[in-house]
C-alpha cells in the first residue's frame, strides 16, 4: 500500500528537523491557491477538486507541524519504500524505567509536590532530547528499523509528557 508523501505535498525537504517558518509559508501559499473560497464561481468538478486538495493540505500541515507525528510519517514513508519491516521489541531496561516514571507521576497525582513535579518534567525532557538525537543518527545511517524502535520510545515519552500537562492543568484549575 502506498503512503501519501506529505513532505512532497507541501514541497518541504523530508526530515526530522524542519524550518517551521518555511512550512507555514508553503502551507499558506498553497491554501491561498486552492481554498474552496477561491472557487465560488467555478464548476462543480473544480469545487470538488479544490475541496479534496485543501483537505489533503490541511492533513499534511497538521502532521508536519508536530515533531512526533512528522517523524512517524517520515519513517512510515521510508519503511514503505525500503520494504523493511519494523519490529517492536523494546528493551526491558527502557520499559522498567518507564514504569518507574509512571509510578512517580501517579504519586504526584495523589499528593501535589511542585519540586518533585519539576524534577520529573526535567527527566522526561532530557530523555526526549536524547532519543531525538538517537533517532536522527539512525536516520542519517538509513537504518529505518532502529530509527523506528527509537520512535516507539519517543511515543512513550510524549504520552508521559501529555499526562504531566494534564496534571499541571488540574492543579491550575483548582
Amino acid at each position, binding site marked *: 500500500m502506498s503512503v501519501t508523501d506529505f513532505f512532497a505535498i507541501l514541497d518541504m525537504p523530508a526530515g526530522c528537523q524542519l524550518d517551521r517558518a518555511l512550512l507555514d509559508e508553503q502551507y499558506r501559499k498553497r491554501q491561498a491557491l486552492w481554498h*474552496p473560497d477561491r472557487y465560488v464561481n467555478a464548476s462543480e*468538478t473544480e469545487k470538488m477538486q479544490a475541496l479534496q486538495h485543501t483537505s489533503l493540505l490541511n492533513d499534511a500541515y497538521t502532521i508536519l507541524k508536530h515533531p512526533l507525528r512528522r517523524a512517524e510519517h517520515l519513517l512510515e514513508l521510508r519503511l514503505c519504500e525500503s520494504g523493511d519491516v519494523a519490529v517492536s521489541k523494546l528493551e526491558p531496561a527502557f520499559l522498567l524505567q518507564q514504569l518507574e516514571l509512571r509510578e512517580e507521576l501517579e504519586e504526584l497525582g495523589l499528593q501535589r509536590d511542585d519540586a518533585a513535579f519539576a524534577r520529573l518534567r526535567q527527566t522526561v525532557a532530557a530523555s526526549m532530547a536524547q532519543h531525538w538525537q538517537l533517532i536522527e543518527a539512525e536516520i542519517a545511517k538509513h537504518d529505518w528499523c532502529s530509527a523506528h524502535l527509537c520512535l516507539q520510545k519517543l511515543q512513550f515519552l510524549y504520552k508521559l509528557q501529555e499526562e504531566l500537562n494534564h496534571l499541571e492543568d488540574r492543579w491550575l484549575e483548582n
Partner: protein
Amino acid sequence: MVLFTIAEPGQGRARQVIKRKRAAGIDLGTTNSLIAIAKDGKAEVIADVHGQRLLPSVVQYRAGGSRTVGIDAMSPLPGATIISSSKRLLGRGLADIQHQLPYVLQDAAKGGMVNIDTATGPVSPVQVAADILQALVERATTQAGGELDGVVITVPAYFDEPQRQATRAAARIAGLNVLRLLNEPTAAAVAYGLDQQLQGTIVIYDLGGGTFDVSLMRLHKGVFEVLAIGGDSALGGDDIDRAIADWMQKSSGSSGMPVEDYRQLLQQARAAKHALTTVTTTTVRIGAWQAEFTRSTLHELMDSYIETTLKACRRVLRDAGLAAADVTDVVLVGGSTRTPRVQQKVQEFFGRAPLCSINPDEVVALGAALQADVLVGNKYGDAALLLDVMPLSLGVETMGGLMEKIIPRNSTIPVSRAQEFTTYKDGQTAMSFSVFQGERELVSDCRSLAHFELRGIPPMVAGAARIKVSFQVDADGLLEVQAEEMTSGIKSSTVVKPSFGLVEHDILDMIKASIESAAADKALRTLRERQVEAQRHIESLKAALQQDGESLLSVDEKHKLEQVMQELTVAAAGADAVLIERLTETLNNQSRDFAGRRMDAGIKTALAGRRLDALGEKP
C-alpha cells in the same frame, strides 16, 4: 516551442465577473442584530429609516397574527407576547434551558426544539430568527438599494451543529441565500485585519448578550488562520442581568413574579448595569422596596462569570500550544465587553491593554460583510483568505456508548478523515452508525447529529469485515459521512442535516407561508438565476478554452464543447428556464473531463513548486 502559463482555474476568470453582486453581512445577535454591506473593500452598517443602526432582537406577536420587530416591539400591547434573547433557544430542547425566561416555553415532541407560547400560538425560535432576518433585509433593500444576492450570517464560534442548522433554516424561511455561516470572532478578526491591518497572534474575546466565544488567530499577509476556538454558547451579558434581578428579588424578599413583571425587572437590571459603567452606585426598586446597588456588589455578582470566560481562554491557549505572552493583541467584541470589570480582568489575564478601536457592537457585521463580498464572487486574488476550524469534535458511537472521535476539535476545515471499524458478530450483514458532536467520552453527554445504516455486508466471521467510515467537512462546515465495506465495496452515506425537532416539512411550510404572495416573482427569479448561472458557466468555459483549449483538448473535443456553449448562449437569451437548466447541465457534464485535465496539469506544476515561483513574479 510554444510557451504557455497555467493560471489556477479560480483566478483566470477574476476579471470576467459579469456584474457586481450585492451581498450583506448579518450579525444575528442575542440582544441586537445588524446588517452591513461592503463596497470597494469598505463595509458599512445599514441604518433603518430613523437612522438606528442596531435592531433589538425583539419580536412582538399579537393576537390575530400580526408582529413587529425591533424597538417598536419592546413596548407591550395588551395581550401581546414579547420575545427577546430567543437566540439562546435556537436548536435547543427544553432540557438544555436551565434559567428563568420572561415568556413561557413548550417542549416539542420527541425532545426536539422548544416552542414559545405567544398570542398568535406556539412560535419556534427559528421563526423568531427569520422575522428578525427579514426586518434586517428590508433595511438593506429599502435603505441601500435593491435585492441581495447572498448573505453571510454570523454565529457564535461555539454553536454546535443543531444550532447552526437552525440558523440556516431561519435564513431559508426569510428567503435568503446563505453564502456561509461565519464564526463571530473570525468575522471580527477580518474587520480588524482588513480595516486596521492588524497582524500577528490575536485573541478575539467576544462576550455578547447570550454567548461567549474566544478565538485565537494568526493574521499574516491576508491569510487569517484560526488556531483554536472555545467558549460557552450559553453565557453572556444576559446572565449578569439575571444575576442582578435575582439579587434584587432576594434582597427585597419578593418571589414568584408574573412573567411581565420579571421582564421589567430584567430591563431595570440591565439599565443598572449600564449605569454602573460610569457611576459607582445606583438606586434599584421593586414596588415600595428600594436599595443602593453598588459597583462592588456588581463585581461580586459577575466575577464568577468572568472567571468562566478566562478558563476558556486558558484552554484555547493550551490547545494551540501557546502562552498568554505569545499573544500580540487582544481584541474585544460584543456589547458586554464595555463593562469596565471585564476589560480589567482581560487585561490582567493577557498582560496587555485590549483593543476596541472598532465599535464592538458593529465589528462582527462589518467583517461578515467583507467576507460576503468575497464569497458572492466579487473579489479574487488579493482577497483575504479565512482558514477556519471545527469548534467541536465529531465522531461516531462505538460499543458501550463511547464516543470515538474522528475529527478532533480545532481541525482546520475543509478536512477529511477516515477510520476503520469491524463487525462484532459472525455473519453480521448490517451495521448502524450514529454521528455525534462533543468533547465528552460518552455519547450520552454529546449531541446526536445523525444516524444511518450500512446494509448488505457479505456474511463473514466477526472482525473480518473492514468498514471504513469517512468524514468530510467542507469549507462551510457541513459534514458528509460515508461508510464503505472494503472487501465488497458496498457503500452508504448521509449528509448531516440535523433539524432538531424541526422536520423538513415544517421548514417548508414556514417558507411557503412567507412567500405565498410572491409566487409569480419566484418564477421570474428562477429564470434570472438560471440565466446568470448559464452565463457564468459560459464565461468560465470560454476563459478555460482560451487558456488551455489547444493544449489539453483535441480539435474534435474542443469543437463539441463550443457547439454546446453556443446552444446555451442562445437559450440563455430566451425565457425557457427548463431548457436553460438542461443545457447548463449538459455543458457542465461535457466539460468535466476538461476541467479534470486542467486541474491535474495545475497540481503537477504546483507540486513541482514551479507555478508558485512563477506566480510570485507576476506583477
